[in-house]
């Protein structure tokens, strides 16, 4: 009988998958799929695009796993591939449609949970709206940093700009968000 991998650490799953263990890969993918999809949804502003981007990212992750030098850092590494594939998709679509006009992940569920709505519902919808009002590049940089936990250098590479510009954009986004947050109490 096959061993249960659901308790296995990310690093173990990543090492096994790098050596061709498809079951370990599937476990790794299922474990982080929600996060990957939420991240891609924020970056592409579309659930459908997010699903496509995550699918492409998943194949790329499988393909590139043997090159991952730190299996314990696999989650952040996966997120980075998700953002890369998300931007590939957004760029390929841009001529046809203005991404800013696409539906944002506006009102996800969890709102139905009354307890949670009481605790942070106002703050969360405040942040959601404030993010929507941010200029697109500021929103992207903020998402890559705060949601994806990516390094300044990686963000600069993904967006084709300089680290200094990334820092500036992030500083402005943070300033706006912390200022607006005063009203969310």
């Amino acid at each position, binding site marked *: 009988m*096959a*061993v249960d991998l659901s*308790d*296995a*650490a990310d*690093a*173990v799953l990543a*090492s*096994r998958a*790098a*050596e*061709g*263990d*498809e079951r370990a*890969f*599937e476990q790794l*993918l*299922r474990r982080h*799929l*929600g*996060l990957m*999809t*939420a991240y891609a*949804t924020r970056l592409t502003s579309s659930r459908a695009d997010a*699903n496509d981007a995550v*699918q492409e990212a*998943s*194949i790329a992750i*499988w*393909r590139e796993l*043997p090159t991952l030098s730190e299996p314990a850092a696999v989650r952040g590494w996966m997120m980075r591939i998700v953002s890369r594939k998300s931007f590939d998709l957004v760029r390929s679509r841009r001529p046809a449609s203005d991404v800013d006009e696409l539906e944002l*992940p506006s009102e*996800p*569920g*969890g*709102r139905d949970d009354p307890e949670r709505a009481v605790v*942070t519902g106002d*703050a*969360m919808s405040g*942040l*959601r709206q404030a993010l929507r009002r941010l200029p697109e590049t500021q929103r992207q940089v903020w998402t890559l940093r*705060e949601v994806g936990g990516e390094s*300044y250098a990686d963000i600069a590479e993904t967006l084709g*700009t*300089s*680290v*200094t*510009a990334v*820092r*500036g*954009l*992030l*500083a*402005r986004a*943070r*300033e706006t*968000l*912390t200022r607006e*947050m005063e009203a*969310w109490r």
Partner: protein
Amino acid sequence: MSDDPTRSSGYDGDESGPTRASSDPAETTPSSAGADATADALAQGLDPDRAVAAGDAVTTADAEAELDAAVDAAPDDGVSLERIADYLDEGRQPYDPLIEDDPSALAQLNALRRLRGVSDQLLSDEVAATPAPAPSWIADVMSRVRLESRSGREIPLTSTHERTTLHITEGAVRGLIREAGDAVDGALVISCAIVGDVAQPDAIVTVDVAISALYGVAVQPLADEVRLAVVRHLEQQTELVVEGVDVTVRDVHQLDDEHDGGL
């Protein structure tokens, strides 16, 4: 505050400090109000040619952002938000009195912490709201994965028919090694390798196996058991001449419910 720090002494302190000294180019060049991309990039250790290219390539919006970054890094009234954010990223270690002892910096730090708390909540809310993937979505990914299976080297097998050659792939043998190791109670295979010229029939090979041991299990007997299991399994399933199996216990793991129960 008894030691009310001035801004200039603040920057001095930062530059001589052990942390993130190189991570904040704007702070190491506090006078760069002109947002000189080349100088900033140099401060980050980039090579000058690339830095110039990057400087040339920036758009008006980027240049504006860089200007803002420089301005943000050298505000009139204390520590920059960016530096506070970096400090927060570092887990507020080592203790920075310029931030911790300054009421307005501390207020900004707390605002950033709160923002991060709301962001984390928003993200976990969105993760929870992500519909479970359609079974066909996973199946689709996995079938594409199988098309790119990592089969590795081909290992010849003796054929009973003169005109056919049989092979087993290295990937399949790795699968057998994992299967054997995993089957030992308390062991989980992390990685394995077949060392030797497996493409030659009857080549002598050694097998390296790294395992994780379940917390509390005696490591030496576990390693021995894994070694035996791998040897036995390979003998039964392959024609490899296995000279030795080296088992390394690389990690110790717990099962999830034991985390909760507290061993």
